[in-house]
């Protein structure tokens, strides 16, 4: 079943380009602090924008610490709990070109909402091997959790209402680095 996405308008800007970059730099430092350096770390981003954020974090860490960390891309379509409700799933493929066994994997996504995506990502990741530890880095935590999941690193906590949408826009996909809140046009 394919319903056209409802039209949305921008309600407010949350982060501009500089603020977005500062938040990423802070998360990179926190990752290094919490793990006492970059040894045995690997990034896995959830498609699509989680992968882009993971690459940016890896670049930050390389700048700070000089260590080049591996980055993988995880597609969770095959692990969703709501396949029947969504229709026409698009599988974009998992591409993790390194072993995650015994690594500390930092799972990266742009927005944390119900927690269902992360639940699916944890299952998908563990099917690929047994990491020593999984940590969760989220750019925007907008609340409304439906599962007991909490992030280890957060770019920004952003209380929202359920009818709003948080859009993390990134140059690689959207031509700009910005975080905005959108709401349906009929509101």
């Amino acid at each position: 079943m394919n319903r056209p996405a409802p039209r949305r308008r921008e309600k407010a800007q949350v982060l501009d380009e500089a603020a977005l970059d500062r938040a990423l730099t802070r998360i990179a430092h926190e990752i290094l602090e919490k793990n006492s350096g970059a040894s045995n770390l690997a990034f896995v981003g959830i498609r699509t924008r989680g992968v882009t954020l993971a690459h940016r974090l890896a670049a930050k860490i390389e700048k700070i610490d000089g260590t080049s960390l591996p980055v993988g891309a995880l597609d969770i379509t095959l692990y969703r709990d709501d396949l029947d409700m969504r229709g026409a799933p698009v599988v974009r493929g998992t591409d993790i070109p390194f072993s995650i066994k015994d690594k500390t994997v930092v799972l990266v996504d742009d927005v944390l909402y119900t927690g269902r995506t992360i639940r699916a990502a944890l299952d998908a990741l563990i099917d690929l091997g047994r990491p020593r530890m999984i940590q969760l880095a989220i750019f925007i935590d907008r609340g409304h959790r439906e599962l007991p999941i909490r992030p280890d690193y957060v770019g920004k906590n952003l209380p929202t209402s359920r009818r709003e949408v948080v859009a993390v826009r990134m140059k690689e996909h959207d031509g700009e680095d910005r975080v905005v809140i959108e709401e349906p046009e009929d509101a």
Partner: protein
Amino acid sequence: MAWTRKDLLAMRDLEPGEILTLVDTAASLEEIASRDIKKVPALRGKTIVNLFYEPSTRTRTSFEIAGKWLSADVINFTASASSTTKGETFVDTAKNIEAMSPDVVVVRHSASGAAELLARELDCSIVNAGDGAHEHPTQALLDLLTIREKKRHFEGLQVAIVGDITHSRVARSNIHAMRKLGVTVTVAGPPTLIPPFIGELGVKVAYRLEEAIRDVDVIMMLRLQHERMAAGLIPSVREYSRYWGLSLDKLQKHARPDVLIMHPGPVNRGVELSPEVADSHYSVILDQVSKGVAVRMAVLFLLAGSRSSEGQVRA
């Protein structure tokens, strides 16, 4: 392009965008074959019935593995061991199976149109796994996936399909799919095995192997069924092999050095393909078989995974 169909019956029905959605989805699923644990939970709780009225090892096994890797329950129903021998009709058998609530029925039958008949009669999704001389869509899809991996694109490619075109559902499905994707197709074979009016499908016809394989990117050799000789369509297997069999010598003399040799299997070694060609670096026959699993996963996933219950669509 979003997948919205209930069934996969024929390549002829599909839009180019739908064909590419199937090929892209299959390409994304290929990595599952290289995992230690070859299982994803996508179709957990779904039931797939393989309803096969013709002998088939490769296709049935391929659908079975595909379903199992996606965590579906796969049941094989082979007609010879079943109620058909007790006189039950095809549609009655299918309705009995449907009463057990499968999500997808994969059907192979010697009668053209069998899959379409079931699609009309049953509410579950139907996949055509070969119906008579009509179509075999998943074979065409795995051929396309193999070609795209090696040649990177479709538009402008030249493909020769050689052998018994008249009785080949593989040829029919490939012709329809390839024409939609901008591939130039030449069919070749003895005149008795080339259907009249085949040109109406938008293909060229060649009556000599050497002419058909010149400058093409892909040569697809079809299996010669032994019963064609009994039917008087070819004088002898030896003569067929002399004129239409692909030997290494003919291949190197007339075809491009980067040509791909494909065959839907099972190969009659020494008839349509010489063993040296079947085992040469030109041959991608085993790639076709492994891609078959990815393609069937994609088909099962898109059909069973996209069936939405009205009113439950989430934003």
